[in-house]
C-alpha cells in the first residue's frame, strides 16, 4: 500500500511541477523567439551568390530537457497501445527550440545576421537500465555569417 501512495504522490508532483515548468518554458521560448526574429536561420548549405559575406563562424546551441514522472508514466501506457506520443512531443519541441535560441545567442554575440546550413542532432540520455527515456538532448549548429547589406 505504501508503494501505491508513493507512486500517486510522485505522479501528482510530476504533473503539477512538470506542467508548470513546461508552460513557463514555452512562454519564455515564444518571447525570446520574437526577440531574435531579426536573425535568420537558413537551412540551405550555401548563400546565394548575390549575398556579400564578410565573415563566417561555426555556431552551435545545445539543450537537454528531462522528462518528468507523469510524462514517463503516460508514455509508458502509450507504449502499450501505440499512437501519437503527446507526452514526449512537447519535450522534443522544447529542446529543439531552446537549442536554436542558444545558437542564435552565440551568433548574435559574433555580430552575425544570418546562419546557414542549420543542422540538428538529437540523442536520448537514458537514466536507467530499463530503457526508459531519461532526458532528451538536441544540438543545433550552423554557419553564422555577417552580410554586407546594400
Amino acid at each position, binding site marked *: 500500500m505504501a*508503494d501505491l501512495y508513493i507512486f500517486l504522490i510522485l505522479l501528482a508532483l510530476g504533473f503539477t511541477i512538470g506542467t508548470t515548468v513546461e508552460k513557463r518554458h514555452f512562454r519564455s521560448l515564444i518571447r525570446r523567439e520574437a526577440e531574435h526574429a531579426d536573425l535568420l536561420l537558413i537551412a540551405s548549405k550555401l548563400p546565394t551568390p548575390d549575398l556579400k559575406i564578410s565573415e563566417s563562424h561555426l555556431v552551435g546551441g545545445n539543450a537537454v530537457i528531462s522528462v518528468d514522472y507523469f510524462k514517463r508514466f503516460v508514455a509508458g501506457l502509450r507504449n502499450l497501445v501505440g499512437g501519437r506520443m503527446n507526452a514526449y512531443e512537447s519535450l522534443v519541441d522544447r529542446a529543439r527550440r531552446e537549442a536554436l535560441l542558444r545558437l542564435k545567442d552565440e551568433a548574435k554575440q559574433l555580430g552575425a545576421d544570418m546562419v546557414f546550413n542549420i543542422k540538428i542532432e538529437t540523442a536520448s540520455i537514458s537514466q536507467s537500465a530499463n530503457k526508459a527515456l531519461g532526458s532528451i538532448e538536441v544540438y543545433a549548429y550552423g554557419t553564422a555569417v555577417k552580410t554586407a547589406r546594400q
Partner: protein
Amino acid sequence: MKYENPKIPEGINTTREHPLKEFAILTVGIFGALIIAVFALGWAAQWAAPHVPFSYEKELSQRFFKDQSLDKPNQQIQDWLQQLATRLVAVEGLPPDMDITVHYQDDDIVNAFATLGGHVVVHRGLLKELDSENAVATVLAHEIAHIKHRDPIIAAGRGVSIILALTALSGTVGDELAGKVLGNAAILTSLSFSRDQESRADEEGLAALFHAYGHVSGATDLFARLKKSESSLHQPEFMQTHPGTEGRIDAIKQMARANGWPMNEPEKPLPNFLR
C-alpha cells in the same frame, strides 16, 4: 534573393490537448482492459484447475509441508483434529484419492485454512475461541469442503496466471515503482478464495455437520465470537473475501431452518486436553 523566417504557428508540433485527458483515457482504457483480462484469466484457471489430478497437487504441496515433530500435548491435539477430520471426510464423500492431513500450529493466530494437497492448518488461536467439538467440526468441515471443491488449486491457478500476466505487463510499463504497484495488486487479487467459494464451503460444511451429529448446534459459535472482536475494525462487506460475519450467521440459520436441521441440541464438549 530575399530570405525570411516566418513565424511558425504554435500547436503544430505539440498538442493543445490537456495532458490529464490523455492520462485519463489511457488509464481507464488500459486498466479496464486489464481487469477484464484478469477476470478472463481467473475464469480460465477456474475451469482448468479442477482438471489437475489431485495426486499432482499433493506432490506440489509436499515441498511446503515437511513432517514436523510436535511435542506430546500438541501431538495429542493434532491426532484428535485428524480423527475428527477423518469422520467428516467420510460424511462429505470425498473422492477416494483425496485425503486430508490436519496440521496443528501452536501460535496465537486466529485462523484455520485449507491449502494445496489436502492440507488443513489449524492455529491454536482459533481453537481457543471455540468451546465445543461441534464448533471445531464446523471449521474443519468448512475447510474440508474447500478441498472437496478443489478451491485451493483453483485459487493457486488463478493466482499464478494473474501474477504472471501482470508481472509481464509491469515490465513493459518501464517504471519500477508502477511495476511494483501492479505486482502487489496481483497478489492481493489472487491469494484468497472468492466469496462464492466461501459460501459454497459454508453450505457443504453445514450439511456435513448435520450428517455427522444429527444437528447443527455450534455452527454459528465461531462467527458470533468473531463478530465481537470484529466491531473494532469495521470494513464494508464488499471489501472482504469472506461474506460478512452477520451475513454468514443469517445464511447458516436460514439453511438450517430450510432443511429442518435442529440448532439447539446439546453440544459435545471438547476433550480435557483442549479445555
